């Protein structure tokens, strides 16, 4: 299978062509304001570099920050209606009660509370009231709103009410976009509702973006299908991506880590992506990033998306190096992208980490004579400080005392000069376009997050049920059944609930089935 992977980032749009597991070519293009031009440029450049004909490409996978940016910058967002089912419960907090005012205003802040919802064990809180919902539909129509997010209490346990309400709104308001919260998030009403509302407000934008990607690809002569990558490093097809744009939010760092794993041939590792100003650190388990367990904020709003557990430290290739009273301080301030004019090796007057690396003789870059004055003692002390910072963040990320390799990617990887904290360091080929590789190798997944009463069905049976559901979900998403693996199983007993209630989360992943 010949694949193209594209990663649209804040600064660069990277692309690779892969034949099976081999990287044929990789390029970096500048991300443009309209995004599409940058994508077309990257596609054309990588096709040329690979010497492949456009018609030979089977699939294109795209990771993008488009939708994250729209939320963070409060632009291209549609006026949205939030409908919550659960009265009389939840009346104390209307939808969007904890949203930043400007974001709420950008989408109109329209929320409705209605009857419905379920208890933790599936019992009904109150029945759905069709008349009530039709009244809400009237009001939504009068306000000219085109996109609705529906959230029902305990919908991750049973999604029936959301489905039924969705059907009622679809009949009353044909053509309106509908987002059901149980398709987006997990247990945690406000966070899941927030994620659903965010998804709903991106539905107009997603139609335009998917259409533009489709055009960009066709324009280059590529006939293959295209997919977008999700927060968890797996794929969604164009139709799915148009319905669930919110699932692309963290695909950048995820693709970067997955690409790093692939290029080094290891599935369990710490990944350090060293840029100009910061290093992003995460850890990989079975080739997928470890997920954050607490609420994740996007654009100032609490959500509970599946997002990689990545943290940043202020260490990069452009970080300032300052000596005060015998101690060396590296970062967090940095020259960033201005390194090419401000670092000493490029004729500037700011001492950066890259200058010290060049002075040590380990790497050739710029004009070495500009750093000849740095003493061996100073170089050694700075290097010690850098490695100590890296050791600290690698330690933070370790899952067990078991030794794991550390994969170092990114332009700032020249800072690393040996094992970190006793752990082997791997710097793979094509490290500069690891994110595009990550997009290209993305697989297909299915996930399940349910509460089971173990007193009724027993732990083994509950896990087996969850695994089966996750597998079926992966198949529905396009995975080849024979390739499916369960990559994550987690069960947490729930305090205070009877029947030995346990929350079970299972993820199944498989190879994309290209028929």
């Amino acid at each position, binding site marked *: 299978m010949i694949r193209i992977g594209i990663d649209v980032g804040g600064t660069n749009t990277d692309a690779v062509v892969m034949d099976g597991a081999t990287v044929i070519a990789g390029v970096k293009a500048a991300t443009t304001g309209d995004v599409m031009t940058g994508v077309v440029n990257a596609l054309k450049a990588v096709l040329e570099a690979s010497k492949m004909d456009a018609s030979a490409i089977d699939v294109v996978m795209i990771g993008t920050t488009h939708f994250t940016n729209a939320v963070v910058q409060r632009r291209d967002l549609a006026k949205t209606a939030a409908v919550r089912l*659960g009265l009389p419960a939840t009346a104390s907090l209307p939808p969007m009660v904890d949203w930043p005012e400007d974001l709420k205003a950008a989408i109109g802040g329209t929320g409705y509370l209605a009857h419905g919802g379920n208890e933790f064990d599936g019992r009904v809180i109150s029945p759905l009231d069709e008349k009530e919902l039709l009244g809400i539909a009237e009001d939504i129509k009068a306000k000219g709103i085109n996109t609705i997010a529906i959230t029902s209490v305990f919908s991750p346990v049973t999604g029936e009410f959301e489905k039924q309400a969705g059907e009622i709104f679809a009949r009353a308001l044909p053509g309106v976009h509908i987002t059901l919260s149980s398709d987006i998030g997990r247990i945690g009403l406000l966070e899941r509702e927030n994620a659903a509302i965010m998804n709903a407000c991106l539905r107009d934008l997603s139609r335009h973006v998917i259409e533009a990607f489709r055009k960009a690809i066709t324009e280059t002569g590529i006939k293959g299908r295209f997919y977008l990558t999700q927060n968890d490093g797996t794929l969604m097809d164009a139709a799915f991506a148009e319905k669930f744009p919110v699932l692309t939010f963290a695909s950048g760092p995820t693709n970067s880590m997955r690409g790093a794993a692939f290029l080094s041939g290891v599935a369990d590792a710490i990944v350090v992506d060293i840029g100009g100003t910061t290093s992003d650190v995460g850890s990989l388990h079975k080739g997928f990033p470890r997920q954050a367990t607490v609420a994740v904020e996007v654009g100032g709003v609490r959500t509970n998306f599946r997002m990689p557990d990545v943290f940043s430290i202020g260490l990069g290739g452009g970080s300032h190096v300052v000596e005060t009273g015998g101690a060396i301080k590296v970062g967090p301030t940095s020259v960033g992208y201005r390194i090419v004019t401000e670092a000493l090796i490029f004729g500037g007057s700011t001492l950066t980490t890259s200058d010290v690396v060049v002075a040590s003789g380990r790497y050739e870059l710029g004009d070495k004579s500009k750093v000849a004055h740095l003493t061996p003692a100073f170089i050694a002390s700075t290097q010690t400080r850098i490695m100590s910072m890296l050791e600290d963040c690698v330690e933070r990320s370790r899952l067990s005392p078991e030794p794991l390799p550390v994969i170092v990617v990114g332009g700032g990887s020249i800072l690393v000069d040996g094992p970190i904290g006793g752990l082997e360091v791997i710097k793979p080929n094509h490290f500069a376009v690891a994110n595009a590789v990550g997009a290209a190798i993305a697989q297909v997944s299915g996930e399940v997050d349910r509460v089971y009463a173990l007193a009724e069905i027993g732990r083994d049976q509950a896990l087996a049920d969850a695994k089966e559901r996750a597998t079926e979900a992966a198949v529905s998403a396009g995975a080849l059944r024979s390739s499916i693996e369960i990559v994550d199983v987690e069960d947490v007993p729930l*305090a205070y*609930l009877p029947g030995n209630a346990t929350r079970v989360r299972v993820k199944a992943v498989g190879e994309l089935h290209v028929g």
Partner: protein
Amino acid sequence: MSDKGYLLKESDLLPLSIGAALLGTGGGGNPYVGMLRARELIRKGAEVRVLPLDALPDDAWVGEVGGIGAPVVGVEKIEEGGECYRAMRAVEEAAGVRISATISAEIGGSNALEPVIAAAYAGLPVIDGDGMGRAFPEVQMTTFFIYGAKAAPAAIADEKGNVVVFKEVIDMFWLETFARGVSVNMGAAAGLAIAPMSMEFVRRAAIPGTVTQALSIGHTVLDARQKRQNVVERVVASTGGKLFFTGKVTDVRRELVGGFARGHAHLTGVGDWAGSEARIAIQNENLVLWVDNVPVIMVPDLIINLELDTGEPITTEVLRYGQRIAVIGLPVHDLMKTPKALEIVGPKAFGYPELTFNPLQPQPVVA
């Protein structure tokens, strides 16, 4: 109405919830939702005054309220709002008294906010104090019960309008059993009001000043974060607590025993504790900390897990492999250390009969 004490402002709610989460010692539920609910009420004009223990006369009546149920339901089936208030009104009617102020059963976790919310609905003040000075899993583990408060009449109310009144209950253990059972029928979330107590009794039996204490801890955390200082160090210094261990969680085992999440967490030392090992016994809340197999702090003293870098309190339910944690200890109030109290909340009561309670001495406070 007294003009003593102080009015709660909107800007107090976040620090109050942070302090309450910290005093939750790993349990107590997440106060975030309660904070939002209190905020909505204050924004709509509700005024809630926090009164010191000496503000009201002996014969004034105090209503003890709190949420009862599963923390996971608390973040999913959010309250209608008036649950604790309706339970409290039912108790007033059954006891034939008028309540003049509310008080928290436990300041640790989400129950710090429930009396504030009930007070807002009722137009009453809230007493600066509570029945534990921390959180504990069961309703009878309060100083109120330990020092002789009656259990009934009590009431439990759900979001649908159901109010169940317990007319005669021979003790708090029975109330815990009945109330827990009814709460599960109600969906594992409800508002509970226990028999009204006289101000004279509350003055003797309450842990004093704990609303202010939670507020103060929260302000310290937020201030330290804003100034990019070490939050853990500042919290320890300002509370007279002690830092017992810093380490990384290497194993967490939990199982459901009798409706509670019991288990152990294992940690490997970092920083000053590199080379040492620690173990924490858990039953929703943290029960005992061993460092290199020596029990160094145990219930009823407060054992608190904070994220090492941010000082964020970590509850038992989110404790996981790989987290870097500071384990700090605070001495529990003297009222919780008497022989009578230790029978209910000492190590033996939680299944550690081999341990003798060795109280943590208060450390010097650096403001």
